[in-house]
Structures are given as C-alpha cells and as structure tokens.
C-alpha cells in the first residue's frame, strides 16, 4: 500500500510538474513564435532586395528575391510594367537588372543582375499549404528597412471581387504595405512558397501566387522568354445549384477562331473534366487552363442531356489580354443594335447564357 501511495504521490507530482511546464510553455508561445519568425527573417534577409523600375512619370518601387546563386531574381510584374530595365539594391550597391521575362497575366517578372554567389531562397512546395498554415513575409515597406510579417493562409481564391485571377492564389492575413509587392511568402521552414502580387483590405491581407504556378511561368521564360498561356476557347458560367449540392460548370459560349468554336461543344454542356482534372467548381477550369501546355491536345469531358461526351481539343495560345478575349465574343452589329431599339426582357439568373449570337459560331 505504501508503494501504491508513493506511486500516487509520484503521479501527482508528475502531473504538477507537467502543468507547471505546460504553463511555462504557454507563456512562451509568443516567444517561440517570435523566435521562429526571427530565425526565418534573418535567414531570408540577405536574399531579399529592393527593386525599382521606371515606367511612366514616376519610379515604381517594390521588392524582389534571388532564386539562384547567379543573380536571378523574382519580382512582381506590377513593378516592371512596360520597362525593359530595372534596378536592384543588393549589398548596399545599385545594380542594373535585365528583365528576363515578365507576364501580366500571372504577375510574375524574372530579373537578372550581374553578380556572383548571390544568396538565394529555396523553393518550398506550395501544394502542401493548408488553411491556417503559418506564413512569413520578408519585404521592404515604402523606403523603410526590410521587415517581417507573420500570418496564416486564409484562403485559396481564384476571384477577387468581380475579377478572375489566372489561377488559384493564396490569400494570407499577412499585413502588407506598399512596396512589399514582389516579396517572398515563406513557410515555417523558411522556404519560399508564394510571390506576393496584390495587397487587399487596405494592406491587412495579401494575395500571393503559389510557387508551383510561379515555377510554371519561369519554365516558360527559360524556354522562350515569354509566358505562354494556353486555352481552347470555351467560356463558362456557374450553373444553378443541383439537388446534390453541386454547382455545375456550364459552357456559355465558344470563342471565335479558337479550337472550341469548331469542336462540336455547345452552350449548355456541363464540363466534367479537363485533362485529368475533375471540374467541380468554376475555378477548377482556371487551374486546368493555367497548367495546360500550348501545342498539346487536351481531353474535355462534358455531359449533354445526361449523356457523357468526350472532345479532343488542341491547346492554343490564349490572347494576351483579357480585353482581346472579350473582343472575340463581340458579335458585332446585329446583336448590339437590336437591344438599343427594344431591350430584351431580362433572362432569369439561373439560366445559362445562351445568347443566340454565340451559338452561331
């Protein structure tokens, strides 16, 4: 019995110690977070640089980071815009940077400075990110020194307000100030998982392009200097919610002069699969298109009147600007004039767009 009592005693002491230790840990959570963030910040700092470019009347200022030891760096297209030259501050020196590639659609720009043995960030796997994964940004706000910010993944979006991104973006509640665009978003291991491209909510949150998508653009730059975005030319809308809770993705129109126009696809078809990617929500098609390779064929699986159909379509280059995309469906004179004279009655919201004009292609 004595032993038993001693054992109990021991257990109680253990418990107390555990609670005490735990308490100690609880107090130290912030300490350990700041310690971790500091570690990531210190490790990443040498690889992060200020980027400037001249376009229009004022210099544009942002951040960039090296991705190899020979002076290649990533930054945001928003800083470079139409200029072919940029400047980078690295080790307190001003370097002229060559623009290796820039892509307005994804927001990626790739620069190179003439420097050897540059420190660089290693790329992490952005596909491993989940809701609430920890993230650290390291970038230059305004003309202030390099600063870290810490936050979490708060979403994976393809749409900001009424505009669609080229592909899924990471939304993070990492505070961001003007000038920090083009900076890296790092995971808890200190690997870069995203390129910050857009500040929203007055800088309370930011959008970053996942590294997987950035890599795809970089490989285009390396191949030909220009990012090639593929498509087959099918416009879609979100259909009405079905009883199963699904929201089908419905073909709304086929773009003039594209492979889809002559394919036999019809407005009203429900898109089920593009290549190997199952299509459940409209954003799925954007990712499918983003990672498609121009010149290769793709299998598009649809359902028409309950019947499954498969179409084989060649992937062609998407027009560079969405305005150009829009102009491809402009049906011209006859359809626009008529409504001016007598407005058509409004179609119900749930009905997929089946303008007679688009069917005539």
């Amino acid at each position, binding site marked *: 019995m004595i032993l038993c009592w001693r054992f109990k005693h021991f257990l109680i002491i253990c418990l107390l110690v555990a609670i005490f230790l735990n308490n100690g840990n609880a107090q130290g959570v912030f300490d350990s977070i700041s310690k971790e963030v500091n570690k990531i910040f210190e490790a990443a700092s040498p690889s992060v640089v*200020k980027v*400037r470019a001249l376009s229009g009347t*004022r*210099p*544009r*200022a*942002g951040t960039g980071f090296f991705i190899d030891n020979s002076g290649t760096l990533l930054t*945001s*297209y*928003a*800083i470079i815009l139409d200029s072919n030259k940029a*400047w980078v*501050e690295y080790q*307190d020196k*001003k370097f002229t940077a060559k623009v290796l590639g820039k892509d*307005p*659609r994804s*927001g990626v720009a790739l620069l190179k400075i003439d420097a050897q043995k540059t420190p660089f960030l290693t790329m992490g796997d952005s596909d491993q990110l989940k809701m609430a994964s920890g993230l650290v940004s390291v970038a230059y*706000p305004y*003309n*202030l*020194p390099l600063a870290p910010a810490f936050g979490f993944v708060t979403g994976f979006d393809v749409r*900001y307000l*009424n*505009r*669609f*991104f*080229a592909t899924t973006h990471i939304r993070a509640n990492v505070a961001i*100030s*003007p*000038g920090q*665009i*083009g900076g890296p978003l790092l995971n808890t291991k200190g690997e870069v998982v995203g390129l*910050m*491209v*857009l*500040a929203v909510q*007055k*800088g309370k949150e930011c959008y970053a392009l996942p590294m997987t998508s950035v890599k795809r653009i970089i490989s285009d730059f390396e191949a030909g200097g220009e990012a090639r975005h593929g*498509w*087959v*030319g*099918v*416009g*879609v*809308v979100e259909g009405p919610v079905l009883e199963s809770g699904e929201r089908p993705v419905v073909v709304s129109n086929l*773009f003039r002069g594209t492979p889809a126009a002559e394919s036999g696809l019809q407005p009203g078809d429900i898109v089920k699969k*593009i290549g190997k990617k199952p299509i459940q929500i*409209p954003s799925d*098609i*954007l990712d*499918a*298109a983003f990672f*498609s390779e121009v010149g290769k064929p793709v299998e598009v699986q649809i359902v028409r009147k309950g019947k499954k159909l498969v179409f084989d379509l060649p992937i062609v280059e998407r027009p*560079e*600007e*969405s305005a150009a*995309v*829009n102009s491809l469906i402009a049906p011209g004179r006859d359809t626009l004039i008529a409504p*001016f004279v007598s407005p058509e009655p409004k179609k119900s919201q749930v009905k997929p767009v089946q303008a007679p004009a688009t069917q005539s292609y």
Partner: protein
Amino acid sequence: MKKEDQLQQLLKLKQRETPGEAYFDAFVDEFHRYQRTSVLQTRKSWIARWRRALSELAEDFFATPSFAMQSGFAATAVVVLTTVLVFWGELNPGTSNQGSMAMTPSSESYVYGPKSLEDAAGSPAELNMAHLTSFDRDFENSSYVTGESTLAYDSVLAF
C-alpha cells in the same frame, strides 16, 4: 432613340467607373501620407529636376548638332548659372525660404495632417531621412507598388 441621345446615355454611364467606396475611404489617409512625403521631397526634387533637365539637355545637345551650334553656348550658360544658384541655396539653407518648415498652408512647404506618434517622436524629416540609402535617393518620389489594377484580370471565365 436619336444617335446623340444614345451617345449621351452611354457616356453618362462612364460616370460610375470609379474604384468604389473602399478606395475613397482609404484615399484621405493615403493623401496625408502623400503630402507628408512630398514635404520631404519638395526641395530635393528641385535639385533632381535640374539634374534631369541637365541630362536631357545634354542628350539633346549631342543628338542635334545644329542645336549645339546655335544655342548650345547660351543654354549651357543659363544651366550652369542656375545650377550654381540652386546649389548655393543648398549650402545656405537660411537664404532659401523653401528649406524652412512652416506650418501655414500658404507656405510652399508645410506639415499637414493629424499629429501622429511619428510627428511626436521628432521631426518627420529626421525620422525619414536617417535610413534613406543612396539607392532610395536615386529613386526619390517613387510610387510604392500595391499590385492593385496592374494584374491582367479576366471578367469572364474561360479555358
């Protein structure tokens, strides 16, 4: 409907092409920031403008020989004289009213906006100038990118 009326109706709709309430809510703050930065740059940009003008003139000078022949001397004389004046002002801030920080809106330079911690901590000039690297000075008056409105968005979904 008459053509003219249709056109006017169409144009009227463009009135709404503004960025929405959130932008204008933030605008006042942004404006304060802008004004505060411009205080620091008023004087410096003066010099920068001259430097730029000088270099542009130099470019023109070499690009067009006739210009160089006819008015080169006169232009150079004017530029040299003014540059001397500008830098003389720089060396003797007391003689230039642009260098002083007056609080009245009528003055060329001023401090504007609510008193913030930053202001309380010391003059914003000291605070902001201290850390400016020569790189920042080369690109003074930069617009710091937020990424808004530069991405090529789509308004239609397509693949």
